[in-house]
């Protein structure tokens, strides 16, 4: 556990799974969950590099900003998804091709 590669590989697994969710999921909220997995993988990389780069706290600050942006992104994305549901009665991303009815 004092090896950088372990953390990088775990982050790579999380990134791949998140990408898989974005590619294959039909439900828009499940796609959002995939995005969250990818952001977590990026954060894990930032903090692992901070620890193995001589405890450099800039990595922590970057992870902090990523978390803040993730919160903002989820709030706006859910507002859009709820609008989509009110208009089309479905949140299947394959069916959503227009913003207006």
């Amino acid at each position, binding site marked *: 556990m004092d090896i950088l*590669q372990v953390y990088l590989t775990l982050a*790579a697994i999380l990134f791949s799974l998140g990408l*898989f969710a974005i590619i294959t999921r039909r439900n828009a909220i499940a796609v959002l969950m995939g995005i969250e997995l990818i952001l977590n993988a990026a954060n894990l990389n930032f903090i692992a590099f901070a620890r193995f780069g001589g405890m450099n706290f800039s990595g922590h*600050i970057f992870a902090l900003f990523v978390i*803040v942006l993730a919160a903002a992104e989820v709030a706006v994305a859910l507002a859009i998804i*709820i609008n989509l549901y*009110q208009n089309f009665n479905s949140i299947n991303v394959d069916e959503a091709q227009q913003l207006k009815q």
Partner: protein
Amino acid sequence: MINIIFWFFVIMTIAAALTVVLSKNLIYAAVALLVTFIGVAAMYVFLWADFMVGIQVMIYIGGILILLLFGIMLTTKITSVRISHTNVQRGVGALIVTAIFIGLVWMINISPWLQNISQEPQQTVHSIGTLLMTDFLLPFEVVSVLLLGALIGAAVLARKES
């Protein structure tokens, strides 16, 4: 002992992430996402980032996950519409993702990483606070404006037009 705990959390994170991606029930996927976030927070503990653990638990688990659960419940009629949502084109997706993953792991293993092992710091909050108020002051202020924009934007978008 600490090795066992570490690998337990690693396997727990991967298994929960697999459930997030493959589960047909969205509520199960959301709960598995919670376990994934806890696993990543445990990784932060092993990386000596105690402040980030608190932030991860508070914002991801306490904020983002609750928002996602609300989104699921507001957009799926549990009684009439099926709550399950399957994946499409699993084969092609798995192929692409496996190729990217193999490339990533190959890159991780051949790269000569600089591993600068340092002492465990006494505290992290003090250093993070100092950095936020000195080197990263401008991004800090810009992010506050962005949060205000996201707040207003989400409220305007989600409001029903009368």
